[in-house]
């Protein structure tokens, strides 16, 4: 039969203090995941309430450890909105409005067009499932080498699914390993072609 004692009573028996508190039981073996000096930069994490250290800290009020979580949550909201915007721009290149560009600027990158462009380019490097499959095949081919006919097929798929660049086989006859035929599919360079 389940105990009729209240939650707070059961916690009190175990050594915890009160309801809505998170208490570290120091008798339990725990692995510390934080190493080195504490980071000053605000990180995108779920543990802001405990000063980024949920192992050693606990939030007495159940709301926030430092009292400044509202600021951290605001930063997170801006970061999330910015990422959403950049992903949207990656899916719809060329459709970013001035207001959206201003939002990207608000994300903390200086440098005008170049900054927005590089972020958008980074976002656009997120592959579709088809593109991921092509890149995965290229990765595998880089480790094992690939026949010329298979590379031609891989290049055709890269063209079909818009993985750029797709080039090869080619050689750089001047020196070194590059004298042997190799190719490139998207970010995977130096695919040896047998």
């Amino acid at each position, binding site marked *: 039969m389940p105990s009729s004692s209240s939650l707070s009573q059961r916690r009190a028996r175990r050594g915890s203090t009160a309801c809505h508190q998170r208490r570290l039981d120091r008798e339990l073996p725990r692995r510390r995941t934080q190493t080195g000096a504490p980071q000053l930069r605000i990180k995108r994490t779920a543990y802001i309430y405990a000063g980024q250290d949920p192992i050693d800290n606990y939030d007495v009020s159940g709301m926030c450890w430092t009292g400044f979580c509202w600021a951290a949550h605001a930063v997170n909201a801006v970061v999330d909105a910015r990422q959403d915007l950049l992903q949207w721009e990656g899916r719809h290149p060329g459709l970013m409005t001035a207001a959206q560009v201003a939002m990207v600027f608000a994300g903390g990158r200086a440098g005008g067009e170049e900054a927005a462009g590089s972020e958008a380019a980074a976002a656009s490097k997120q592959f579709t499932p088809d593109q991921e499959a092509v890149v995965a095949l290229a990765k595998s081919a880089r480790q094992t080498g690939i026949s010329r006919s298979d590379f031609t097929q891989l290049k055709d798929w890269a063209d079909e699914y818009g993985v750029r*660049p797709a080039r090869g086989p080619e050689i*750089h006859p001047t020196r070194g390993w590059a004298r042997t*035929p190799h190719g490139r599919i998207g970010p995977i360079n130096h695919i040896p072609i047998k």
Partner: protein
Amino acid sequence: MYNHQCTVYFLAKEPRGTTYESLIRAGAVPGSTFGLVVRDGEVLLDRAESLLQALSPELIEEVLAKEWPGTRLLDDSVARVLTYRLSPQALRLLISAARGLYEWQHPELPEDLFIRGSNGRTWLTSVAHEGEAFLSIPSEEAARLQEVAPGLFLEKGEAACPENA
């Protein structure tokens, strides 16, 4: 084409900034030319297209080729190899378009900048996506070049060279 070994000076580190500028200026002797490559099927950014447009008054020839200094294609694709006069105007554009020699890559820019001397011999060869470049120059010129461009780290070596190198 690459039928003999010759002594060259590899650029041990990418020339960037003032070193890049000094290198390009050193190659800009009267009668010299330079070349850029546009790969088959590559979509260039507006920046690259604008540069090609700005360089068009200096264009000497545009050929579809399977080979250019530093690279040979083994499939059935070809690339546009554009050769230009290395005039003061073109020099200015080359210096302002890139901050480093290996920035000459698609899609931001045309690829693989090379420079030929007034005698038609290739002076500078680069394979930008491999981060490799070398100068086909005698030792005296290498010494002089290191004086005018102290940031240029030259490493003497042997490379397979084309007939005209």
